[in-house]
């Protein structure tokens, strides 16, 4: 296996692309009790249209299929459910679906090989029937309602709706009760056969492993298959401009919550460097030691440090700042004003170095926990990144680059505001 060392934090990872196209990444962690396995396919909620490998036809699927498939994968032909089989071994098993991938995972302290058997068995053996698909619609319907009640999720969807006109990222990951009603076993098998091919997947293991022998164990459990070309995905055209400036929803929240978004161009080269740079800017702008945060906190406009994020895939890229405020519009105004201020002022060297240290610390802390490491390697791999790059490219960021990013990314015309507030009392 190819070895990659990250000196600063004293970690290593081992990588191998198998003949069938499956990417395996192993991150050994000596002396830990926990082992973490995560197997993901590059198939998420935005992958709604693609060219079918079998027929060569263009296929459009209902919203929410990736997530529905995730739910149904656990069900086995003999009537058992793999989730329960794993739990019965004291293994913490789960799965999740994001915009760009679906992941199956487990974390355990004992019974590792039994867990590996079960995981690799159920992910490679789907079993969908009319009956079990119908039943799942009830359960997922409940889950969709739960999201409907979740102010944080509604806030995010509102922000996506402002940023994008056509991009499916604006649609709920689980779909809608209406869209999932159209899902059939046939659609599920079609998507499975296209997207759950090893060449479209990544397998990450974190824990006290000897990499080569674990690799053999993984190979042993894989079904035979030939490598394939990349799947052709079709996405609706999206302009560089935003869809709309503002979205306000009324829900039962005591204090309004807000999300400021800034739409960015689709990622080109050196996205890691850009990501680090944007995180530095966001910390300087509204991080916990920033002047703006202190001001807004003492004016009662913020209750805590806002969450800051830069989200991207091959199909979208945006900056997000979210928090709780009695007056979201005022916060938005202040943030935009401060951005302009930063553009015209000199970068404070001391502040810049301090924030760099902080962000280095944030990245290093990610390596405390097997599940954080596993999820990070998967999410980054799907985006074409090796997670170590964040620690390695760190030194390349200087003040000029920050200035450049400020001027190119933080464009007021691309900024939006999503708000969820309590209902107007009569």
């Amino acid at each position, binding site marked *: 296996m190819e070895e990659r060392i990250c000196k600063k934090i004293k970690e290593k990872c081992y990588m191998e692309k198998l003949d069938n196209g499956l990417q395996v990444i192993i991150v050994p962690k000596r002396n830990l009790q*926990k082992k973490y396995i995560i197997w993901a396919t590059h198939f998420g909620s935005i992958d709604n249209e693609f060219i079918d490998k079998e027929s060569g036809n263009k296929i459009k699927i209902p919203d929410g299929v990736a997530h529905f498939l995730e739910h149904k994968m656990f069900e086995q032909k003999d009537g058992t459910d793999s989730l329960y089989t794993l739990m019965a071994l004291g293994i913490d098993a789960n799965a999740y679906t994001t915009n760009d991938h679906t992941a199956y995972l487990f974390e355990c*302290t004992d019974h590792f090989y039994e867990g590996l058997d079960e995981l690799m068995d159920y992910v490679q053996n789907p079993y969908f029937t009319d009956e079990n698909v119908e039943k799942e619609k009830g359960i997922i319907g409940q*889950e969709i309602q739960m999201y409907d009640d979740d102010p944080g999720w509604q806030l995010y969807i509102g922000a996506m709706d402002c940023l994008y006109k056509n991009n499916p990222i604006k649609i709920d990951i689980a779909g809608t009760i209406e869209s999932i009603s159209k899902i059939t076993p046939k659609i599920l098998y079609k998507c499975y056969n296209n997207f759950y091919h090893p060449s479209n997947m990544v397998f990450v293991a974190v824990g006290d492993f000897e990499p080569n022998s674990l690799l053999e164990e993984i190979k042993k459990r894989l079904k035979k298959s030939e490598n394939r070309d990349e799947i052709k995905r079709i996405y609706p055209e999206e302009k560089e401009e935003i869809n709309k400036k503002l979205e306000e929803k009324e829900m039962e*929240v005591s*204090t309004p919550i807000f999300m400021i978004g800034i739409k960015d161009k689709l990622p080109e080269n050196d996205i890691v460097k850009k990501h680090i740079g944007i995180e530095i800017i966001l910390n300087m702008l509204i*991080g916990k030691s920033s002047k703006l945060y202190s001001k807004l906190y003492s004016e009662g406009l913020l209750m805590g440090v806002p969450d800051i994020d830069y989200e991207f895939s091959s199909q979208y890229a945006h900056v997000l700042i979210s928090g709780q405020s*009695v007056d979201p519009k005022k916060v938005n105004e202040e943030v935009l004003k401060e951005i302009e201020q930063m553009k015209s002022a000199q970068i404070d060297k001391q502040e810049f170095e301090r924030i760099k240290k902080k962000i280095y*610390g944030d990245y290093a802390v990610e390596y*405390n*926990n097997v599940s954080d490491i596993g999820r990070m390697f998967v999410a980054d791999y799907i985006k074409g990144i090796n997670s170590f790059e964040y620690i390695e490219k760190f030194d390349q960021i200087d003040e000029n680059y920050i200035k450049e990013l400020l001027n190119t990314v933080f464009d007021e015309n691309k900024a939006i505001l999503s708000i969820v507030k309590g209902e107007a009392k009569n």
Partner: protein
Amino acid sequence: MSLKTIDIKEGIKLHEIKTNKFKTNLISVFLTSKLSREDITKKALILTILRRGTNNLQSQEEINKKLEELYGASFDCGIDKLGDNHVLKFYIESLNEEYIYEKEDILNKSLNILFDIVFNPLVENAHFKEEYVNEEKNNVKLIIEGQKDNKSAYATQRCIEEMYKDKPYGLYKYGYIEDLDKIDSKNLYETYLELIKTCKIDIFVSGNFDDTKLEKGIIENQLISKLEPRKIELLNEKDESNQKENVVKESMQISQGKLDIGLNVKSKNKNAVSVYNAILGGGANSKLFQNVREKASLAYSAGSIYIKPKGKIIIKTGIEHKNYEKTLEIIKKQIEDMKNGKFTDEDIKNAKELIIASFKSMQDEQDSEISFYFGREIQRESVDIEKQIKDISDVTKENIVEAANSIEINTIFFLTKE
């Protein structure tokens, strides 16, 4: 892994957990006092005031700059109920020196900042800074009002409140809005001084460090040496809530209903009750999950939690409003089945595996390990993780049936739409 406990003074302890599994060292200070209606809101305010500034670092901005310089050390604080005790928790997590790119004594600097925050708050003319108190009063008000934002947690808190009407454990950990008007910077500071003089103080340090140097640093710290010894009386009223099937319904605008059921547990065999709880609602194999969610498709979530120090179990479900009767009936059936021993050896085995795995993985998580040892400290127990695992393995079916027969429904709380 090893735990070493040192009495710094009567009522003040240092607990060291040596481990090299992590990139970080985690330090925490816990201030434990009795839960009481009189000062609950004040204590919540003290928690939020302390993080605002110290006599050395006079604002959050100053504190945060210092933390960022220490490679983004992170400060956190929180408030908890543990039995009938109220705990103020303060944490700093910082990188171990082995992983930084310049040489710096991060652990000692982190300790000093944490002690500064807890024991040396910004004081002006014998009271807290007026401005901070006013801002934090407003902040705590928003937190209390925000209780309803997390529907599932709110339903559980309301269920517990109904089980413990007018009793310490029923109190809301952040207090009550009506108290805020009477609090000013002077009386709040007096409460703080009293708390620091009398509360139980536990300092935990988890990570890779030189213990002699650490102990010296803590014992010689001026703020620590100024603290007086104190006699500790912790409160843990036993079983003061024994009402039966008290049904409460509350409505709010919500599309999924939350049904929480509080159970009385008379059995003193905590290990047997832990296994009981895991069979009933511990995970995806539990009776609740299987019967309420899977077989009847009634709920998205269904499970139960065991509140060990209080001897109570809370069943939590998220259901469609119209399914209230049906869900309740199925839940009651599960409780009845448990009493009649209608569960298999397989169920017992699964439940034990689940609990044991959680004990084992705890050693890979700094904060969980600290919480485990702190819980043990408060309940005056001295079992370590290995012994705990053995005790769970030794639970028999008879033990579980016996525990099951000591269990009754106390309160049924349903949060439903208007």
